[in-house]
């Protein structure tokens, strides 16, 4: 495999050998290693010194189930720290088959032009793009499919990325031409700052990825697929109800942040729940189960149609529905679906944007529960009005602009869908992850609430530091393989399936990793990321939750009560 490097300052590209130190890395381990090595930690994230890195995981492109995820890394304009954002879609598998270990985009062109980057068997082409500038992601993907073919991989930014809004995301085409996103941390703004509107990948003529011991690989892949299909969460729960099954459950557990994190239960929860959504999708002839890339056997995604049975949105996730729903007190699933579609189209993180609108509602811009008002605010972001630009820069920025003190962010990134006072394990992850507030970085909700991988009391302190630490380490390793993080629900309970991942890695590369090596990989990733943040100016004091979490949160009336010393223990390894 090779490093594909694009220099946007002089519009040149080259293909390089992979340095020895990066050879055993993939996905997040690789994007973070590249950023740590090549990006000055104190640089301006939207300036010429930042770099945008795309890396398929170690197993991506192979027949390993659920292995097609893409890691995108850079210094984040939202947090000011290192960022890895993870997406589905078809691009990652195509990059891997093209032999792309990582695609590094660096520099910055003079002038106002935008460019498209095309990768195919002949190499890398950089071309000026005018027609698609100012267009939303749905149109960009459709026009590029018309230009090349349906089989093309597309990575693109919408208007938010072009405007360098710090909540802008990067969109990736899924198998149906719809959108998956590398959502968090404003990486769309970094792509916009490089003036890259899209990247297309044509893997026509590419050879399959090389597997050193293909029999062993096939056996291990079979064991892994069986584990995923037999586990009740990955085999049944996720495919049937998607991630949105969590609305009712978090509501019942008193941890569904409502009205900008004022309480932990939302009266309208059932109206926006996964169960309701499942019935709506079926009645409108959408799809309740859908994979974001070929080879996904879990298929947690779905296609949500409007009242007339026309496609409205897909990849309609719990966190988005929670955010525009409970957090903004909107109990209309169709409004939330429209909001999700607009976010995908203009290319803005739906979690950050939902948290931001909650803050804006608190600041009196529109009342809580105002669905049409929400859609209007998203229109302001699309148009790039001054209000839209404030909102598009995220919850922290908006809170400051409006003088709001209840602003749920850590390292300036919006806190997602689980109240840290009622799900304390994930609160520790929000506080300490080098990514800023990110539930996926160490999903303690699994053990706190869903009782997967054990049972740790969500309201107490006991066991939560270890839980968050162990999950953050394991997650950093999984994010490096290209596997979808949802495989964790299975491997937390099924040692055979976990071993199968190691067996696949060993068979693909002809190596002999052990479980301890995988843990060490996870630690290496976290240490690399934390060192970058430290050099960028972060201290332990940045690993804290906002002050308002010391206020009680009904219904349990719990507070965030970890001491600084206890929080700092999470990264003591």
């Amino acid at each position, binding site marked *: 495999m090779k490093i594909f490097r694009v220099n946007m300052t002089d519009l040149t590209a080259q293909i390089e050998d992979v340095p020895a130190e990066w050879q055993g890395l993939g996905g997040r381990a690789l994007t973070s290693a590249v950023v740590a090595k090549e990006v000055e930690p104190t640089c301006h994230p939207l300036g010429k010194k930042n770099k945008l890195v795309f890396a398929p995981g170690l197993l991506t492109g192979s027949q390993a189930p659920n292995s097609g995820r893409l890691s995108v890394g850079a210094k984040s304009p939202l947090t000011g720290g290192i960022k890895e954002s993870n997406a589905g879609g078809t691009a990652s598998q195509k990059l891997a088959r093209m032999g792309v270990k990582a695609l590094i985009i660096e520099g910055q062109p003079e002038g106002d032009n935008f460019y498209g980057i095309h990768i195919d068997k002949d190499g890398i082409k950089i071309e000026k793009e005018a027609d698609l500038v100012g267009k939303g992601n749905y149109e960009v993907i459709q026009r590029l499919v018309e230009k090349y073919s349906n089989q093309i991989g597309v990575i693109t930014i919408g208007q938010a990325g072009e405007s360098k809004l710090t909540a802008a995301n990067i969109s990736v085409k899924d198998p149906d031409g719809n959108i998956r996103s590398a959502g968090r941390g404003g990486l769309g703004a970094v792509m916009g700052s490089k003036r890259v509107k899209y990247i297309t990948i044509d893997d026509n003529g590419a050879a399959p990825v090389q597997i050193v011991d293909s029999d062993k690989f096939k056996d291990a892949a079979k064991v892994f697929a069986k584990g995923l299909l037999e586990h*009740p*969460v*990955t085999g*049944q*729960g*996720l495919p*049937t*109800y*998607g*991630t*949105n*099954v*969590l609305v*009712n*459950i978090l509501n*019942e*557990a*008193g941890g569904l942040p409502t009205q900008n994190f004022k309480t932990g239960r939302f009266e309208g929860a*059932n109206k926006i729940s*996964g*169960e309701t959504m499942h019935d709506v999708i079926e009645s409108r002839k959408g799809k309740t189960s859908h994979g974001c890339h070929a080879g996904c056997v879990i298929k*947690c995604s779905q296609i949500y149609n409007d009242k007339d049975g026309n496609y409205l949105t897909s990849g309609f*996730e*719990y*966190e988005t529905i929670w955010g525009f729903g409970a957090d903004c007190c909107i109990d209309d699933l169709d409004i939330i679906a429209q909001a999700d579609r607009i976010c995908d189209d203009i290319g803005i993180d739906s979690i950050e944007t939902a948290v931001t609108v909650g803050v804006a509602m608190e600041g009196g811009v529109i009342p809580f529960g105002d669905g049409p008002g929400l859609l209007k605010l998203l229109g302001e972001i699309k148009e790039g009005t001054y209000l839209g630009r404030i909102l598009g820069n995220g919850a922290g920025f908006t809170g400051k602009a409006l003088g709001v003190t209840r602003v749920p962010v850590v390292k300036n990134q919006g806190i997602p869908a689980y109240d840290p006072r009622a799900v304390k394990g994930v609160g520790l992850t929000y506080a300490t992850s080098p990514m800023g507030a990110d*539930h*996926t970085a160490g*999903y303690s*909700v*699994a053990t706190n*609430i*869903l*009782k*997967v991988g054990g*049972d740790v*009391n*969500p*309201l107490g302190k006991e066991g939560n530091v270890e839980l968050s630490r162990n999950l953050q380490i394991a997650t950093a390793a999984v994010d490096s393989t290209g596997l979808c*993080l*949802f495989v964790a*629900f299975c491997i937390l309970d099924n040692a055979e399936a976990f071993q199968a991942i190691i067996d696949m890695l060993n068979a693909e590369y002809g190596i002999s990793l052990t479980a301890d090596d995988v843990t060490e990989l996870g630690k290496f990733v976290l240490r690399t990321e934390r060192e970058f943040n430290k050099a960028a100016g972060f201290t332990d004091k940045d690993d804290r939750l906002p002050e308002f979490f010391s206020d009680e949160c009904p*219904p*349990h009336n719990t507070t965030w009560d970890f001491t600084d010393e206890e929080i700092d223990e999470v990264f003591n390894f």
Partner: protein
Amino acid sequence: MKLEIRLFAGLKCNNKGLSCYGENEFCLEVPDGLTIRELHHMLNLQSSLPLVNLINGLAQADDQVLKDTDRVGIFPPVGGG
């Protein structure tokens, strides 16, 4: 005593003899001292898998004795995130 019951992720009352048959959100009069396990049987919840019980928002084991006005939520293994 009276319980406020919510069943999630496809669970429904499967006891034809109860007025809440086929429902997933209802109030139910039950004998004093009923355990969660007995409630599972009473509702004939069809799950080959262990269920998670949230009583007034707190996870409880199947042998927990229920009290009057308890808010009961029950769900099979699910995930998301």
